[in-house]
């Protein structure tokens, strides 16, 4: 072998190694998700398993559901993993997402101060509890950020027959921030706040707060996942993104979700097989 061929060969090998390294590095997707999935620690638990299985890095941008859907709409994420079914169905019907897959559920809980000024502690009726909070003018913190939790809260006021936009008083404070910030605010001002159970279980600055209302069917909180439509945004990593979705709804992914516990308490209940969810 001549000197020149050898050099060329070495150069080619180096270039190939470099290229494959670059491809390996690029084996990543961006998932726009909600603060609840991140702050609860779920992603920290399941993503290493997905990475070990597939070698795909999942970069999670944790936002409110409204913002996460908007990130997908702009083509800045490959996958959207959120919890507001009507908004998700609209996202798909407008052609921004390909298909919505149910993944798991947990539930919302009404958090309140131990002093319980609205006298609702231990109730299982969220609608009656909200009516009592309004009647007593007890302090209530609203996310006010179009997140899934905020949309669920607005829906519950509606079921209670309360037009919160019109009927809110100084007791109703919209902070326009994430779940953690809302819990911090409620903790500092001894107010009621609607939270997802996952974030509550992993939240550390509880102060005088505790669970006031839980177990109402209307507090059900369903999560869904969608691939951003590559026809709208060619930059979407279709195959890698679909890989992640397939894994989430596979028996392995569903088991990983079910296995995530804090102090022995399960945070999310997989239900990908329930096509109506």
């Amino acid at each position, binding site marked *: 072998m001549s000197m020149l061929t050898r050099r060329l060969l070495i150069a080619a090998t180096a270039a190939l190694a470099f290229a494959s390294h670059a491809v390996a590095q690029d084996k990543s997707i*961006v998932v726009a998700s909600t*603060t609840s999935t991140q*702050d609860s620690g779920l*992603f*920290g638990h399941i993503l290493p398993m997905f990475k070990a299985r597939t070698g795909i*890095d999942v*970069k*999670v*941008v*944790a936002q409110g559901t409204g913002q996460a859907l908007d990130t997908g709409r*702009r*083509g*800045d994420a490959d996958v959207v993993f959120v919890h507001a079914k009507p908004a998700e169905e609209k996202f798909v019907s407008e052609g921004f997402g390909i298909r919505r897959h149910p993944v798991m559920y947990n539930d919302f809980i009404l958090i309140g101060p131990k002093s319980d000024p609205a006298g609702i502690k231990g109730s299982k009726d969220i609608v009656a509890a909200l009516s009592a909070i309004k009647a007593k003018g007890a302090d209530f913190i609203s996310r006010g950020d179009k997140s899934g939790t905020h949309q669920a809260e607005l829906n519950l006021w509606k079921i209670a027959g309360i037009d919160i936009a019109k009927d809110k008083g100084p007791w109703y404070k919209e902070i326009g*921030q*994430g*779940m*953690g*910030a809302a*819990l*911090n605010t409620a*903790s500092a001002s001894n107010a009621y706040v609607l939270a997802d159970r996952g974030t509550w*279980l*992993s*939240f*550390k*600055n*509880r102060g005088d707060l505790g669970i006031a209302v839980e177990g109402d069917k209307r507090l059900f909180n369903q999560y869904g996942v969608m691939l951003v439509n590559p026809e709208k*945004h060619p*930059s979407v990593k279709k195959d890698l993104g679909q890989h992640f979705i397939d894994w989430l709804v596979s028996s392995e992914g569903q088991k990983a979700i079910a296995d995530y516990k*804090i*102090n022995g308490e399960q945070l999310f209940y997989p239900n990908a097989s329930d096509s109506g969810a």
Partner: protein
Amino acid sequence: MPDGPSALQLVLSGDPALFAIVRLSLYVSLSAVALAALIGIPLGAWIALTRFPGRQGVIVLLNALMGLPPVVVGLAVYLALSRSGPLGAFGLLFTPSAMIVAQTVLVTPIIAALTRQTIEDLWIEYRDELTAMNLGPLGRVMALIWDARFSLVTALLAGFGRAAAEVGAIIIVGGNIEGFTRTMTTAIALETSKGDLPLAVGLGLVLISIVIVVNALAWSMRRAGERLAG
């Protein structure tokens, strides 16, 4: 409730995740300051030495831009770098590069405005000498920047302080992605939202310590430089 480690434990145990975050913070902010210096120092010096119509207005604007709200810069850079934005094809959103761009926008006016003031003061002082030396306009700019080099360190440190302290811009364009775009300030914001206030405060103290170390290094370099220059 699981009790996580405190910031002190993380530092003492040499936690690799914490060091990656510190490294990224320094990489992003120092890169932004370097880029902003490349733009801001020549720009400031040029405005100091050139007379043109509307110059007073430009100076007022430049001084005002020192107070650019990070969240507004973050939003503007987000819209520009988004896949749906004019620079979307580069795919920079949610990467450290996007964070450097945003911080460069924030820091450039600070360095340019402080350079302008420093150079203008020097120019008033040395106008006669520099005129006598018969240097061209470029020569004057170079001579004054060289003369002002120790004062300009303070302008760079002001820019670094701004970059290292802000969270509003980088959390929007970086996305606070674990292990990829999470910096000290976005990590502090995250721990606060998780209600882990002691860890958030601890990380804040670590950040302040790093800023002090960077300033001390810059200061001792300046002192050493001054001694060498006599």
